[in-house]
């Protein structure tokens, strides 16, 4: 038996990040939250970025946010994305906290996108992973 080489770059989880991907596999978006001060941290951190507490736990978020900014990529320089250019990468700010930002991939160009548009999460199977992605509600 062999495992196929992934055709597109996939996450390499570690002990800290595994719960994010486990939740995504169940169709849930979770973000790390400090239990001492309530600050959300993404990407996850061992220590709260704000109050330095070690008491960090994964909590579910609403999956809703706004389009903070985006980029349209033209370079063929990332494994598995060479044939997809031009494509768009979105940065979505979750409702839970200012500048709580997650990346998303959008096939094709950025027609009709405007900063501030509402976004909501959906889940996208890639190889053995489920990636949280965001659709823009235009």
């Amino acid at each position, binding site marked *: 038996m062999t495992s196929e080489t992934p055709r597109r770059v996939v*996450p390499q*989880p570690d002990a800290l990040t595994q719960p994010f991907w486990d939740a995504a596999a169940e169709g849930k978006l979770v973000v790390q939250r400090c239990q001492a001060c309530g600050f959300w941290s993404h990407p996850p951190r061992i220590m709260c*970025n704000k109050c330095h507490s070690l008491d960090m736990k994964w909590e579910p978020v609403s999956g809703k946010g706004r389009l*903070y*900014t985006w980029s*349209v990529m033209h370079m063929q*320089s990332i494994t598995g994305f060479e044939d997809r250019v031009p494509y768009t*990468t979105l940065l979505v700010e979750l409702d839970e906290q200012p500048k709580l930002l997650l990346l998303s991939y959008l096939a094709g160009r950025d027609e009709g996108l405007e900063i501030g548009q509402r976004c909501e999460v959906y889940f996208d199977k890639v190889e053995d992973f489920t990636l949280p992605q965001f659709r823009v509600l235009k």
Partner: protein
Amino acid sequence: MVWAGKGKTAVVGLGMSKLTRRADKPLGALALDACYAAIADAGLKPSDIDGLATYPDQPFRGAGNRDGEDLVNALYIMTHGELAPDIKWYAQISTGMIASAPIEGVNALISGACNYVLFWRAMHIPRGTYNSFRGYQAGGDGQFGAPYGHVHGYQTHSMAYRHYLNKYNQKREKMAALVTNSRKNANLNPNAFFHDQPMSVEDYLNARMIAEPLALFDCDVPIEGCTALVMTTADRAKDLKNKPAYIAGYGQNTAHRPEYLTYMIDDYLEAGRPHAGKIYERAGMGPKDIDVAQLYDGFSPSTLYWLEAAGFCGEGEALDFVQDGNVSLTGSLPLNTFGGSLSEGRLHGMGHLAEAVRQVTDRAEGRQIAGANTSIAIDGSPLLRGSGMIFTREP
């Protein structure tokens, strides 16, 4: 409070290798060319050099790690440099930005750790792998970016730039003024990669997109080459052949960063203001005291962020500030008078330091600002990290 070290050290020699896309000799040999040129320029012998400082890391994906081929570590120059038989001090820096290494040199000289510091920055273009992400898995923070097709610094910068343009209701077309101005300066700079290639506004606007809204001419031109300089104390500098370029102050980016996503999208003012503030405070100066500014332009918007963060114009005003010749050689703030990384070549901030030295010592051939007394050189984006110095004609 003005820094006790103000004016106590100076740059006394400069040297450069040729800047090309494909060098005809290994990077280590180019670095020795630049180092020996800087030492000779200072009127010193290689055996006078007893202190070394460098920032060797190559700032792109796909970089190798062979000393003398992919990068030039302190050990390489110690081994091959025929310098003082016993090097008294060295620093090899991989955080902050390029000026972080000569900052160490300044402090070493003031403390008496050595007599002369040689500082170099070598840049390499590897064949085939430059800026490509060829892995199949991404770990660390990259696992939240690469699977979405987001990996490179230019992608992060393009997102930040779109955010900036939207926030201040600006258009990317206005950047033509800054980029063509830097190209004009490069056309006067014999060392510049684009010395012989003018750029019109149409050329700028028609350039192919890299990651929108950044196009080809919004990105610095990668080159192979090395620039080096020699520093010493002000006392020793008095006896040497060149006018010294005194170091009035320095600063580093030490901002706290509460959020972090692969590469930061953050408030450039929050990071850049205290960074520039430290440079000014040590020098006992403000933006109005700066005659010529060399502000980092790895990507063209970084210069806008520095114009604002270093107080040369108000928040959101930089794109207007660079219009109508205001930052040209005859403008109110001559900017990137050597062409910047954009048009001289990607020396990653070293070109900015070298030009600041030249301007305050009347050595900026073809583009000298008459009577320039002070020049600031700041490297870094300032979204992420940085360092910088102010050089002066008088101590």
